[in-house]
């Protein structure tokens, strides 16, 4: 018999509605404008670790295909460059192949941008929003370097490939895994740092290695180049990712091209660059910080459920 019922209880549906209302009240109070941008985009993301879903049938497509957005970042930056001022959006985002206890290929994202704020000011605002949703509580922030030193007694900026591999082999059977420094750093983060963060409540990690800066600005810190990027973890669950946003169009183009070279070397399809975004950066993106926060995960934490499928009316398997 077909299982037509929702995976979430009525109480959780109410909880979700209440969470959305709180988020909107939080931003209304701070005079941040709610916006909407398209879910279907003609330009996809170049990040080699994120795969979009593609829509390829339909008259409106005119023979080409479009991507379901993996985040509304590019479109929102075009609004910022056009003078929108502070903006937020609650929307669906899609990432291919991401499914598990904490992942659903289709999920709800809250993304917002704050002209004039640096990453630390935005971290404080993220903490305020989370407290408004989950209840007041303390929060802490560590650098990426500090958590690696704490959990693994190694310096992620100076440890060589062999040291990272050997630390990984202490944690799990790494079998035939092979990759560069970032690959092993990601393994150490998921296998050692995240379990440690599970006991740390509300915790930010910031100042990522330059190679993991994504769309963040680069700065010099203690002799190392770091990306002004942060991640929020709550009880070890990754909830938000933010940047002091890169505003330099030439640098942005270079990073997109580097992503595509990396994709090519790993046998992945290259992605066309979002020229409209690059033109907007050329015209001038105001200095700002931005963050994307997973609302389904926040609901997971608010409800004490262990599986994301329990907070979604209809998870991937049910629709």
């Amino acid at each position: 018999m077909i299982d037509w019922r929702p995976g979430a209880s009525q109480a959780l549906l109410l909880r979700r509605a209440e969470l959305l209302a709180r988020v909107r009240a939080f931003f209304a109070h701070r005079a941040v404008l709610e916006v909407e941008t398209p879910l279907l985009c003609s330009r996809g993301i170049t990040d080699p670790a994120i795969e979009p879903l593609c829509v390829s049938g339909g008259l409106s497509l005119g023979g080409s295909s479009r991507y379901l957005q993996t985040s509304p970042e590019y479109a929102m930056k075009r609004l910022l460059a056009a003078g929108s001022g502070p903006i937020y959006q609650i929307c669906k985002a899609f990432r291919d192949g991401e499914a598990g206890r904490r992942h659903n290929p289709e999920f709800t994202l809250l993304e917002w941008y704050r002209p004039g704020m640096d990453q630390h000011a935005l971290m404080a605002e993220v903490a305020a929003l989370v407290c408004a949703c989950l209840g007041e509580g303390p929060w802490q922030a560590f650098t990426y370097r500090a958590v690696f030193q704490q959990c693994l007694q190694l310096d992620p900026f100076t440890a060589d490939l062999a040291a990272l591999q050997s630390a990984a082999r202490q944690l799990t059977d790494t079998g035939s895994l092979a990759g560069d420094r970032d690959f092993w750093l990601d393994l150490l983060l998921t296998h050692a740092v995240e379990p440690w963060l599970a006991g740390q409540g509300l915790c930010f990690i910031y100042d990522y290695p330059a190679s993991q800066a994504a769309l963040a600005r680069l700065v010099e810190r203690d002799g190392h180049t770091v990306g002004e990027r942060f991640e929020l973890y709550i009880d070890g669950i990754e909830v938000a990712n933010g940047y002091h946003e890169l505003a330099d169009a030439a640098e942005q183009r270079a990073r997109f091209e580097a992503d595509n070279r990396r994709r090519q070397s790993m046998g992945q399809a290259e992605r066309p660059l979002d020229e409209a975004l690059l033109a907007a950066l050329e015209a001038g993106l105001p200095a700002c910080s931005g963050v994307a926060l997973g609302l389904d995960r926040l609901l997971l934490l608010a409800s004490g459920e262990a599986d994301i499928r329990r907070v979604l009316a209809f998870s991937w398997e049910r629709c």
Partner: protein
Amino acid sequence: MANFSTNEFRPGLKVMLDGDPCSILENEFVKPGKGQAFNRVRMRNLKTGRVWERTFKSGESLEGADVMDRTMEYLYNDSEFWYFMEPDTFEQHQADAKALGDAYLWLKEQDTCEVTLFNGTPLSVAPANFVELEIVETDPGLKGDTAQGGSKPAKLSTGAVVKVPLFVTTGEVIRVDTRTGEYQNRVSK
């Protein structure tokens, strides 16, 4: 056999890894906010019984293993092999000592058990959870002692040694839990 990608790894799926058939026990998808996604997979090596965690890059795939469990009747053993028969086809299979492991301690002719076949050959044998076996050797019982407390070793027809209450005697048939090797009760003949 078909190939299975990490997102198809479900508990119970049998796959080939480093030449050995393995059973998936748990599969957890983990991904840092940005960056490489992994699957942390707990698995059992069906040849050695070893249970451990292996990490895969998400999207990697493994070949399925031709492994199936069959209920069979135990026939007999010679100096080298133990022989089993599929009750519906009467097809016979021979298992070596490695496949048997400790299971030989609980096998009585004509009993049914679970035989795991890998590429058509017995890989492991699991006896029924409860078996009834005759005691061939134990110290004489104390007459009338049916009270609680006190136990003694008893050797069974298969060679297994189990602890039994003092009142149980040689020649009696007892019921044993093969998972723990514990005496359950006497079986009236």
